């Protein structure tokens, strides 16, 4: 199909979709008039039943925790997929190719960074690690949680890369432990669920004492699951970043001596 024909076909059908969508939307409750019973029921039950003040995370990690298990494995399989697709091919070691191609330009400008930037980013690195851990462990109390904390943790090594501390960056992201942590984080979530089975209750039932509402160690499995998710997400994103950068990193390594 030519591009023009494709757009005409799309324009005609987009009108139809728009009509169906708007016909449906006009029959919805007006904006700001949420009436559904489900959300209100949970919002009022969660603090009593789960000792968690952030009801969104109570829903995410407990009431509908099984969805989140699926979601974590969506992440797991996507990370596995990225590693599968970008795997180095046997017989074509990238390091060798780097040498044979003479003196290739680095993808990054070689203009040196000012020391201020270097010191500053390294300081932020420490800060974002602490912030990521804080967020992953306080999900049951305040907005945040394992997923958000994990992404912040994964972004931290990138700061080292910006600060041209490439060596430290490479050592962190290419460590075999990262892959191990990604799998165990994901498995950990499912195993917390199985713990419920082992105690004779249903899958993903809370098995840890609930503690005092508002405490860091409150809300039982919610905090534990949130921590597992944090580990998995941090490791998963690190792996993805490493896979994208692998080729470039191996090039820079060759240049260094």
């Amino acid at each position, binding site marked *: 199909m030519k591009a023009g024909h494709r757009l005409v076909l799309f324009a005609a059908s987009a009108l139809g979709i728009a009509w169906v969508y708007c016909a449906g939307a006009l029959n919805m409750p007006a904006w700001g008039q949420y009436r559904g019973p489900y959300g209100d029921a949970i919002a009022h039950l969660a603090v009593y039943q789960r000792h968690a003040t*952030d009801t*969104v*995370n109570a829903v*995410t990690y407990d009431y509908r925790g099984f969805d989140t298990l699926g979601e974590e494995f969506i992440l797991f399989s996507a990370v596995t997929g990225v590693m599968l697709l970008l795997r180095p091919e046997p017989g074509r070691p990238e390091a060798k*190719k780097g040498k*044979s*191609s*003479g003196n*290739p*330009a680095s*993808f990054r400008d070689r203009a040196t960074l000012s020391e201020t930037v270097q010191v500053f980013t390294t300081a932020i690195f420490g800060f974002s690690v602490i912030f990521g851990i804080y*967020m992953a462990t306080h999900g049951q109390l305040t*907005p*945040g*949680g394992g*997923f*958000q904390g994990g*992404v*912040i943790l*994964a*972004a931290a090594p*990138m700061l080292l890369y910006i600060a041209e501390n490439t060596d430290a960056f490479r050592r962190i992201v290419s460590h075999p432990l990262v892959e191990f942590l990604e799998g165990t984080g994901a498995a950990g979530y499912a195993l917390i669920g199985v713990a419920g089975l082992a105690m004779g209750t249903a899958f993903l039932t809370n098995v840890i004492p609930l503690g005092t509402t508002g405490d860091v160690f409150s809300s039982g499995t919610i905090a534990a699951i949130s921590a597992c998710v944090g580990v998995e997400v941090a490791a998963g*994103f690190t792996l*993805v*970043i490493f896979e*994208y*950068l692998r*080729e*470039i990193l191996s*090039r820079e390594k060759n240049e260094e001596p």
Partner: protein
Amino acid sequence: MTAIPGVGLLALIAVSALALVRTDDVTCQTIALSYYGLLLALMFFLFRAPDVALAQITVGAIALPLMVMLAITRMKHREATRRKEKEGK
């Protein structure tokens, strides 16, 4: 209270969405994507969804554009290497 900024922000998002898909240069689009992700995060804050807003800031405004950037970089890097190899031969 949220009505007027909310309506304005939604209008801005609607315009940005069109602008985002009309941007043909991919590098520009990555920057635009980051900006669009930030707008969405702002909207989430405004409409009382702080959890999602945090996730959106970390993902939509940082992780996503970062991945796109890395992918583009890797492709450019590939092309540069290929060109070099050709010249070498």
